[in-house]
């Protein structure tokens, strides 16, 4: 599987409601029982517009210049994180998840 097969897909929740478009993939490093390390796909970040995140405005390390932080944080406010464990089917361009839209957390960085 490649990232290009996931990024850009439409995500639909358990009730068939659209959650958003996948704009980024969230990874986490895990140490295996045998001591080796893997880089695991943790969640899909979905939302209307991924540009703000792309430019780095999801995080608070980005401070200026006016009006970009405000603008992009506003655009990214609906970004949601879909945990991979809740993904039930990937059929590009559709991804189905088992959770309901209102059960999903906001994408990690927007809230931090």
């Amino acid at each position, binding site marked *: 599987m490649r990232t290009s097969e996931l990024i850009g897909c439409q995500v639909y929740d358990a009730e068939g409601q659209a959650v958003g478009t996948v704009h980024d993939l969230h990874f986490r490093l895990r140490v295996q029982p045998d001591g080796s390390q893997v*880089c695991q796909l943790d969640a899909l970040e979905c939302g209307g517009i991924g540009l703000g995140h792309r430019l780095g405005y999801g995080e608070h390390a980005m401070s200026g210049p006016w009006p970009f932080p405000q603008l992009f944080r506003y655009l990214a406010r609906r970004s949601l994180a879909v945990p991979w464990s809740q993904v039930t089917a990937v059929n590009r361009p559709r991804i189905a998840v088992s959770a309901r839209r209102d059960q999903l957390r906001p994408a990690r960085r927007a809230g931090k």
Partner: protein
Amino acid sequence: MTRWDEDEFTANDLLLDRELIDSRGMPAGRVDDLELTVPGPGEPPVLTALLCGPTAFGPRLGGRLGTWWQAIGRRLRPVTDSYPNRIVVELVDHVDRLEITLLTPRENLDSYRFRQWAEEKVIGRIPGSTK
């Protein structure tokens, strides 16, 4: 083992479109796509390789330009296999916010046909190309 500067990150933050630097400090391409593999049933996919070259770049670009690029890339491949150049994660030395360094010189990677063609057929034939 690969050294990661962060243990939680996103593809756009650290991986996609980053520059690859080989063990001698030479640019070795950009990360055009990532290869994820599901290790076993029910387990989440893990990163197994960085993908480079036109057949990885084309689909990411999308649209007609992407298809076109991919088609050229396929023509330039030595074999009919259209799978992009893979750099397995084991070859990655260090990943930080600036760049990705590799454990091997770029000559050991699957070479790009276009680079070879440019080196051997065009630039290499002009006097003074090797200083």
